[in-house]
């Protein structure tokens, strides 16, 4: 069978109509979703921040490690911006693999492999804040995570995430 008759016999028109519709609607849905995704996320961020701001007027701290349990070791509280806190989580992940104590060079190398943005400055921040310290007793030139500290996340910092996103 040939020609239009063959097309009709094989439901050619219906299939084509449905096929084109499905392809277009699938990609149109995707397009719509993508177009609004950043808006949705931004909205959620704003909502989260406004709630946090309201909370901050009272307890001043967003997220906090469990309170010191009377063993005298956890007297230091270190404030990190949300961005630094996120970076800290990444570096924790990396150092878990490398083991402690770790060399900064290795950590930076891994961080670059994983595409973490601006690892040098992030690592420098963590050292400056005292979250990562040189562990002299164990091995000169190697670094450890500071034990016995509370990490608190402050929200009054400007959120640096967008800047980062603009770069990577």
């Amino acid at each position, binding site marked *: *069978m*040939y*020609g*239009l008759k*063959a*097309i009709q016999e*094989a*439901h*050619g*028109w219906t*299939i*084509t109509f*449905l*096929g*084109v519709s*499905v*392809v*277009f*609607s*699938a*990609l*149109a*849905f*995707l*397009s*719509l*979703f*993508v*177009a609004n*995704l*950043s808006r949705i*996320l931004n909205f959620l961020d704003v909502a989260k921040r406004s709630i946090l701001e309201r909370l901050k007027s009272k307890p001043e701290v967003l997220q906090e490690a469990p309170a010191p349990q009377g063993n005298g070791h956890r007297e230091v509280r270190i404030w990190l911006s949300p961005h630094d806190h996120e970076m800290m989580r*990444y570096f924790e*992940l990396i150092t878990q693999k490398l083991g402690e104590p770790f060399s900064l060079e290795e950590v930076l190398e891994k961080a670059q*492999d*994983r*595409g*973490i943005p601006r690892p040098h400055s992030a690592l420098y921040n963590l050292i400056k804040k005292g979250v990562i310290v040189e562990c002299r007793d164990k091995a000169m030139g190697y670094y450890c995570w500071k034990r016995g500290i509370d990490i608190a996340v402050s929200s009054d910092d400007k959120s640096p*995430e*967008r800047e980062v*996103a*603009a*770069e*990577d």
Partner: protein
Amino acid sequence: MELVLDFLSNTGFALADYRHLIMIAVGCVFIYLGIAKHYEPLLLVPIGFGILMGNVPVFKGFGLGIYERGSVLNYLYFGVRQGIYPPLIFLGIGAMTDFSYMLAQPRLILLGAAAQIGIFITFLCALALGFPANEAASIGIIGGADGPTAIFLSAKLAPELVGPIAIAAYSYMALVPVIQPPIMKLLTTREERLIRMPDPRPVSKRERIIFPVVGFLMCCFLAPAALPLLGMLFFGNLLKECLVADRLAQTARTALIDIVTILLGITVGASTQADVFLTKKSVGIFFLGAASFMIATAGGIIFAKIMNIFCKTKINPLLGAAGVSAVPDSARVVQLIGNREDPGNYLLMHAMAPNIAGVIGSAVAAGVLWSFMM
């Protein structure tokens, strides 16, 4: 003595006929194009050598040919015949592709949909020329310009046509720099080709992680049959973007995709055994395949021009041509043509958006076609 004659009569020299020689010449051309012209070398070289391997004349029944049970090539061909290799290749593609160009410019996604019109028009043409529906669908998908999708669909619908369809698809994908430019010039004015696109916005890490999950669910709820291809594509991309599973993404985009590409290339090539390949049908497939590519290119460009009627910020209609997928060759062609008119016009990264959308689009189209043929 009889044994000697028997042996001699089973050498390639005795068994060869003109069809083997034609196919060997075709194989050499593939290898030449891949190596000397740099057209898709990662596919043309394996397929070309596969054509040689499939067309060394061998005595049938000896267990050497790709279509004989128990031969080595037959075992390796299993992954083609059952459609296993294409999803694994999609996994690797997902793990190496940066979707952020697409996320940054959602409206360009539609161009990737428009170019799939080539698939369906070719499907209609093939029906009209007397091909049965399952073969017509497999031929149409050539216009998707996506090798793994074409192999997957034809393995499911018309297994005996996998060879010609794959060869046609990869040939035209390699010839994208030859096929597309004239159509692009014909359908656009110089003013249109000079349109510069605004810089894409940066895309945050969270968006890039959420997209493959939601994108997968959206596409596969609409077209469940696209599951094996799109599932793996989006999964690969999630592995890449989530960073925490980077070693898996790394393997998926190197060892895994390379191994599968080698096996797929060599067996698809070998599946063009002269007596199966050199038929009237193959000629029809090649003609329709070329038409499919051209219609797809035109479809993308024309749709971009239609969008320009409604959009304030104009789209450079050359980008429509990138909707046929053929990643990343057609995007590169767009860049090239745009650059010729205006050396300061960098279209490449914009063209990646419809390019990747085209991959998704043709996988969805394959899913729809498959689900109608069952």
